[in-house]
C-alpha cells in the first residue's frame, strides 16, 4: 500500500528524462532484435565494442553538440573542425618534428579557437548561430584544403604504436569459425568516450554551469532575470562544443591513422540526428547527455542491421531517414499527449485551492 502510494506521489518524469528513457528502451529493444536475428555477430561483445571503437569521434561530437542544443543553440561546424584537426595533426606528426603531445595540443587548440570565435560572435554579438557556425564550417573546410589536399598517412612510430594500441579483455572473447579464440579489444577512443561522457554528463547534472545551460535553453530572458549570465553561459557551450570537436578530431586520427580531406565530412548532420534520437530537442532546454551515445548507437545499429541483411549500402541513408522519421514522430506524439494530459491535470477544481484543500495537499506529500 505504502509502495503504491509512493509511486503515485512520485514526481512525474521531466521531459528530458522521458525522452531519454524512450531512446534507451528503443535502443535496447533494437539491439535485442539484432541479437535474435543475427546472433552470430551481435551476440559478440566485440561487435558492441566496435560500435564504440569505430565511431568514438561521432559520439564525442554529439556530446558537445547536445550541450549547445540544450542551451538553445546549434553548431554545424563540428564535422569540419574535426576534419581540420585530423589533417592538422597528420601534417604535424609527419613534419618530422612532431610529437604526440604536440598533436594533442594542436587538436585542443584548434577546437578551442573555433569554439571561442564562434561563441563570442553568437553570444556577445547576438548573431544567429546557424550562420556563424556555417561560416565556421566553410572556414574549417577551407583551411583543411589549404593545409593539404592529399591524404597523409601518419607513419611516425610513436603514433603508430598509439594507433594500434588496444586494451585486450581476454575473458570477453569469442571463437571464430575456425575455433580460434579471439579476445575482445577496446580502443583508447572508447575509453575517451566513456571519460568524456561521465565528465560532461556530471557537468550538466551537478554543476552550476550545467543547470544554467538548461535554464538558458528553457527561457533565456527569464534566465537573465534570474541572475544568470546568459551570454557567458552560451559562450561556454560553444567553447565546449569546439573542444569536443577537437578531441573528436584527435580520436579520429588515432583510429584511422590518416589525415584526409573527406574526414568527418557531414558528421554534423549525423551528430544532429544522433542528438535528436537521443532525446535532445532543438528548441533547447530539454535533453540528457546520456542520450547522445544512445542516439548515435541506435543509428549505427540500424546501419549494421541493414548491412547484415545484405541491403545495398546506398539504401542505408534511406533507412536512417526512416528511423529518424519514426523517432521524430514518436517523440512528437508522446510530447503532445503529455501536454494534453497536463492541460487537464493542471485545471481540476482542487487546484483552485481553498486553504483547507491546500493543507490537505501539503499533508499528502
Amino acid at each position, binding site marked *: 500500500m505504502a509502495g503504491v502510494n509512493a509511486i503515485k506521489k512520485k514526481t512525474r518524469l521531466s521531459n528530458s528524462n522521458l525522452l531519454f528513457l524512450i531512446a534507451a528502451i528503443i535502443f535496447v529493444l533494437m539491439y535485442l532484435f539484432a541479437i535474435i536475428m543475427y546472433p552470430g555477430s551481435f551476440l559478440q561483445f566485440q561487435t558492441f565494442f566496435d560500435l564504440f571503437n569505430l565511431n568514438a569521434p561521432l559520439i564525442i561530437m554529439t556530446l558537445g553538440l547536445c550541450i549547445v542544443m540544450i542551451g538553445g543553440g546549434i553548431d554545424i561546424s563540428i564535422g569540419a573542425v574535426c576534419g581540420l584537426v585530423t589533417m592538422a595533426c597528420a601534417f604535424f606528426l609527419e613534419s618530422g618534428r612532431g610529437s604526440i603531445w604536440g598533436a594533442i595540443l594542436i587538436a585542443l587548440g584548434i577546437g578551442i579557437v573555433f569554439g571561442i570565435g564562434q561563441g563570442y560572435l553568437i553570444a556577445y554579438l547576438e548573431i544567429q548561430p546557424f*550562420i556563424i557556425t556555417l561560416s565556421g564550417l566553410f572556414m574549417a573546410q577551407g583551411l583543411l584544403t589549404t593545409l593539404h589536399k592529399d591524404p597523409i598517412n601518419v607513419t611516425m612510430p610513436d603514433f603508430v604504436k598509439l594507433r594500434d594500441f588496444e586494451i585486450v579483455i581476454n575473458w570477453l572473447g569469442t571463437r571464430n569459425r575456425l575455433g580460434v579464440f579471439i579476445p575482445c579489444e577496446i580502443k583508447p577512443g572508447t575509453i575517451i568516450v566513456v571519460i568524456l561522457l561521465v565528465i560532461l554528463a556530471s557537468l550538466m547534472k551537478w554543476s552550476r554551469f550545467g543547470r544554467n545551460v538548461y535554464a538558458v535553453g528553457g527561457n533565456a530572458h527569464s534566465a537573465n532575470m534570474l541572475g544568470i549570465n546568459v551570454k557567458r553561459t552560451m559562450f561556454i557551450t560553444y567553447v565546449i562544443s569546439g573542444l569536443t570537436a577537437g578531441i573528436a578530431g584527435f580520436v579520429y586520427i588515432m583510429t584511422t591513422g590518416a589525415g584526409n580531406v573527406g574526414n568527418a565530412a557531414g558528421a554534423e548532420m549525423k551528430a544532429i540526428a544522433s542528438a535528436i534520437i537521443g532525446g535532445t530537442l532543438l528548441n533547447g532546454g530539454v535533453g540528457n547527455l546520456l542520450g547522445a551515445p544512445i542516439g548515435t548507437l541506435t543509428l549505427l545499429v540500424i546501419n549494421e542491421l541493414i548491412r547484415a541483411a545484405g541491403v545495398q549500402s546506398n539504401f542505408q541513408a534511406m533507412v536512417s531517414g*526512416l528511423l*529518424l522519421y519514426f523517432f521524430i514522430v514518436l517523440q512528437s506524439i508522446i510530447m503532445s499527449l503529455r501536454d494534453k494530459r497536463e492541460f487537464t491535470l493542471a485545471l481540476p477544481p482542487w487546484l483552485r485551492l481553498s486553504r483547507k484543500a491546500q493543507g490537505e495537499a501539503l499533508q499528502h506529500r
Partner: protein
Amino acid sequence: MGRLMKRFSHLFLPLSVMVLLIIINLVKGADYFRITMVNGAFYGNIPNIFFGASELVILSIGMTLVTAASRGQDISIGESATITSAVFVQYVLQANEVTLLTILVAFLLSSVVGLALGAFNGTLVSIFKVQPMVASLILFTGGRSIAFMIDGKLSPILANDLSNKIGTVIPGIPIQTPIILTVVFIALTAVLFKTTNLRLYVEAVGINPNAARLNGINPKKVIFLTFLIMGFCSAVAGFIAVNKAGRHDSVNLLKLIMMDAILAVAIGGNSLNGGKFSITGSIIGAYTIEMLNRTLLRLEIEPAMIKVFKAVFIIILMVVASPVVRASITKVVDKIRPASVQREGSVPLPIANRVGKKEE
C-alpha cells in the same frame, strides 16, 4: 525621400554588399561589366551571375516563406530537388521522342513530387509540431538515396535537344534560358503576393500564431502552405539544375545548397526566427552570394582558400549587421550629434503626423 529610405532600409545590407563587390571587381579589372555576344546570346560576368544563381534565387524565395511562417529552415531542399529532378529525368528518358509536351509533362510530374515532399515536411512541422530543421533532416538524410533508387544507376545522361536548350540557350533569344525562367518565377511570385494575402498571413503566423488563430487564420494551414511552395520551388530548381548539367548526379546535384539559401535569407535582412520578411532582400541576397563566389574566383584566390574567404566575408557581414554592433554605432553617432537634435527626436510623437504614405 526619407520615406523611401525607410521603406527600403532592410535592403541596405544586401545592396551595400553588392556595391562593395562591384567596386572590388572593377578595381580588379575595368572590364567587369563587359558583355559579349557568343552564338547569339549574351555572356559575361553579369549574365553569368544571373545564370549561376537561378536555382539559388528560386530556392531562397521558398526558404524565405518557410522561415517566416515556421520560424525555422528546411534543410532538405537540395535533396528534394534531386528527387524531383530524378523523376523528371526518368520520365524524359522513357519517352521515345522528346517533345515539348514530354518535357512539360515531366516537369508537371516532378512538381507533383515536389509538392508531395513539401507536404511531407509540412505535415511534420504543422501537425506534429516538429522543428523544421529536424523535420527536414529526415529527407536530408534519406533523400539522395531515394533519388538514386529512382535513377536506378549512377548519373543517367539527359541528352536531348530540348533539355540542352532549357539548360543553356534557345537560338534566337539572346538571354540564357535559366535566367528567363528565374525572371518568370520571380514575376509569378510577385503576382502571388499581389493577388493574395499570403504576406499578411505568413507574417501574422510567424510573429504570433496564437493571435493569428484567434483572428481566423489557421496557422497549421499557413505553415503547410509555405512548405508546399517550398516543395514547388525545389521542383523548379531541380528542373533547371538537371537541364543545366545534362545529367542527373544524385550524389552531387545541388549539394548543400540549403546553406547558401539560408544565407541568402539572412543576408537579405530577414530574421531566421520568423516574422516579417522581404523576398526582395532574399533575392538580392542570393545574387550577392553568387557574385561573391564568382568574385573570389575572379580574384584568382587559390581554390582551396575560397571557402575561407567566403567565411570571413560572411562573418564580417553579419558582425556589421548585428544588433549589438548597430546599437553601439548608434550610441556613438548620438554622442557626436548636438544635444538639441537628439532631444527633438526623443520626444514621443503625439497624433500629429498621421498623413504619411497617403499618396500611395
